[in-house]
């Protein structure tokens, strides 16, 4: 039972800590963030597994890691030189259709990895690539030559109306903020729901409105 309570406590603590560290921690990690995320998971698991270890011995290192992470994030945000040292710098691996061998060596990135990453991005031919940059988070950004890019609507002089979609009801739950944002009243939305055969907001599974004022409403299965 103690183990169960400890697990809940440590899980909650790690969730709070990761939220304090910001969204990047969950998505694309910088090297120093990756290290901290790894260490936190490891440190949290020790007092969860072994009830002889005081919980405090798990909490102190996690809080210390958060402390270090905050200091590093702050310094990195303020000083570019520190950012370069800790996060590194993006590295150009392909320039004007030519692979930069020295950059590959420096980054310990082999040719197979590069070709694979290019294929994943949809560029099987190296000479289609104007520039490929290895970002600090390990992602390869590819900038193709304009001749290989798909034509855009603007190339043909066609208008491209921006159609922004705003969710209004998700799983029967009314998003009041979005309703106010779109300037739609509850009565108006209810009218739309009635048109689709529903009776109340609870009957709606998903509903959105686009920037032209067109509603999309899908009722819940039991309300159809």
């Amino acid at each position: 039972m103690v183990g169960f309570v400890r697990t809940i406590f440590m899980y909650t603590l790690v969730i709070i800590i990761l939220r304090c560290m910001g969204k990047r921690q969950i998505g694309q990690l910088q090297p120093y963030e990756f290290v901290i995320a790894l260490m936190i998971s490891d440190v949290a698991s020790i007092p969860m597994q072994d009830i002889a270890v005081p919980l405090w011995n798990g909490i102190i290192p996690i809080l210390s890691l958060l402390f270090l992470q905050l200091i590093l994030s702050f310094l990195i945000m303020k000083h570019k030189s520190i950012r370069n040292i800790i996060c590194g710098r993006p590295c150009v691996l392909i320039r004007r259709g030519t692979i930069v061998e020295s950059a590959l060596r420096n980054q310990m990135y082999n040719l197979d990895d590069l070709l694979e990453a290019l294929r994943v991005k949809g560029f099987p031919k190296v000479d289609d690539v104007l520039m490929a940059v290895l970002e600090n988070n390990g992602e390869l950004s590819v900038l193709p030559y304009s001749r290989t890019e798909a034509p855009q609507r603007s190339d043909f002089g066609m208008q491209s109306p921006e159609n922004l979609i705003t969710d209004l009801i998700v799983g029967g739950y009314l998003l009041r903020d979005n309703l106010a944002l779109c300037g739609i009243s509850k009565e108006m939305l209810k009218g739309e729901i009635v048109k689709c055969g529903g009776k109340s907001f609870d009957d709606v599974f998903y509903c959105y409105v686009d920037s032209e004022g067109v509603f999309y409403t899908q009722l819940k299965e039991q309300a159809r």
Partner: protein
Amino acid sequence: MRLYRITWIFILALIILVSLVILPTTLFTRMLRKDIEKFEDGMNRINQQLVEGQNPGEACDDLERLWHSHRRHWSFYVHHNIVDNLDMLFSAYLAESRNQNVKAALSEAARIDSLLRAAEENDRLSWYNVF
């Protein structure tokens, strides 16, 4: 230098974090040291009475009460195995002392003393402990 709102939030977060980590740790280390001194005083009193051939019954009761009142909060910070070992050693020491078995009691006292010293020393901030 102009400080932005986010800077203040960072500084505040750092202060809160430092207080959360350093304050309880320092307080507990100090508490641990005081507790150890109390235990040692109690043991010295019993040992003295044993050597002088007196019955240390009352002193044993005091030390037993002292240990049991501190045992719980020791588990909050000290590894539970150390607390369990100390518990066993205290039981043996108090039993031997009540029986006025001087040699065995002094031997148990020495073992308790070294374990208490280790518990205190493990948490002391020093180069040896850091590395």
